[in-house]
């Protein structure tokens, strides 16, 4: 269960505090419910995912985890550009306390990412698609109750999308997802509930179809 209580978020700009990105956002994600995060570009989807993932802190309000939550996958975050894919993977294994079974996990990550010899090249040489392949493999190598995906599949090619979908399907029943995506099909496939972000406010829908409908209606106006 993840409890988001009354959070406010704005970023510091070069001339003082910026506009509120999120205002008075509250919701509770029950156990084993996958949630789609919907909203137009700049609505605050990534910001909310970073807050839920504990990477960033809200200016006001609290985010409480009552389960193991992954870091947000997507946008090349969490990869040190000067290190190779393998070195990054080892680092992440170590901070998660898996010093003893690093070879197993590396093998799994390498197999999942399918980036070939580039696994031993610095991450700064990677394309966006390669980065998301690696990131996706990295987070799946650890057991989390909730995985956070920030458009992690959007930069991938067809084969990676297929693989990602199969992996998401595999998670059903064991873990849940919070995903932001502009692919309506993906959202409908994997999520039962939806959050529609609009003008800094979050609207919770028990059914993802209702959330998508509300989002589309707002675009027509």
């Amino acid at each position, binding site marked *: 269960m993840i409890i988001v209580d009354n959070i406010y978020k704005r*970023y*510091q700009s070069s001339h003082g505090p910026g506009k509120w990105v999120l205002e008075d956002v509250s919701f509770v994600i029950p156990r084993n419910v996958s949630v789609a995060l919907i909203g137009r570009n700049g609505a605050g989807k990534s910001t909310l995912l970073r807050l839920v*993932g*504990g*990477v*960033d*802190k809200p200016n006001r309000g609290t985010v409480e985890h009552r389960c193991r939550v992954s*870091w*947000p996958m997507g946008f090349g*975050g*969490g*990869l*040190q*550009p*000067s*290190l190779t894919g393998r*070195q990054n993977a*080892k*680092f*992440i294994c*170590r*901070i*998660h*306390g898996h*010093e003893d*079974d690093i070879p*197993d996990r590396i093998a*799994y990550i390498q197999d999942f990412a399918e980036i070939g010899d580039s696994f031993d090249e610095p991450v700064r040489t990677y394309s966006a698609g390669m980065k998301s392949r690696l990131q996706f493999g990295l987070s*799946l190598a*650890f*057991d989390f109750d909730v995985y956070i995906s920030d458009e992690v599949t959007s930069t991938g090619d067809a084969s990676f999308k297929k693989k990602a979908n199969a*992996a998401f399907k*595999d998670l059903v029943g064991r873990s849940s997802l919070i995903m932001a995506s502009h692919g309506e099909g993906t959202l409908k496939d994997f999520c039962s509930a939806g959050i529609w972000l609009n003008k800094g406010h979050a609207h919770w829908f028990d059914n993802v179809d209702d959330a998508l409908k509300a989002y589309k209606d707002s675009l027509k106006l």
Partner: protein
Amino acid sequence: MTTYPDKPLRTPLLVTISVWQALFLREANTRLSSGRGSTVWLLGEPILHTVIMLLLFTFLRVKVVGGIDVLAWLIIGLTFFKVFKNPGTQGQNAISANKVLFTYRQVKPVDTVLVRVFLEGFLVLLVILIIASAAIGLFNVALWPDDMGMVVLAFFGLWLMGLGYALITSVAIDLIPELGKIFNIMMTPLYMGSGAIIPLSGISEPYRSWLMYNPMAHGLEVARAGVSSSYHVILGTNIAYLYECALVAIFFGLALHLRFQTKLLTQ
């Protein structure tokens, strides 16, 4: 997909220890493998520095400073100042260099500074051991300590001072980036006034007492006194003063990290 048996939740201490291990390996890797020169330069820079200063002192026909050979005097001053400077200046940039890693909740800004200061202390210790053994073995410089305890005390005090400096400046630079330039400028007078390359004994009162407010001056004098019991220590040298300054700086630095932790993580 392979599944792994669930592990019980780790205690905060265990998490911190594994973060330190992982960061240490990461830091050591980038520090020693980035660019061909990085490993060579680690040793080459202090050696070159020593040679240049030695030439200068030879031109000035100075052979003995404070009762010990000028080469021994220089090597101790130059390398031991680095015990403060390397951890201090490298640790100062630890947060910005590791920003990406804050994606993982386990990694806190203070961890990156602590690990870097530890790594730099370890590297500078290696540099000192190599240079000292080379100087003793090849040039017969009297560098074997008469009182090892004093040398260790000085080393540790200077390193703690570097830790305090890094803890404070890392936060300050993240909050106000312009301060980075000021800290860099500040380092030069600290170095020149510490007695690392310019003997403080040649400076008249009351100015010498003013320079002795620099805690590093005390560390360097004690290190020299530890190496040679015949060294004439500057009046007013007090190792306790170095430790007092270091502890105050460390506490202040840790307080800053605690106070601004959220701000350091927030973009």
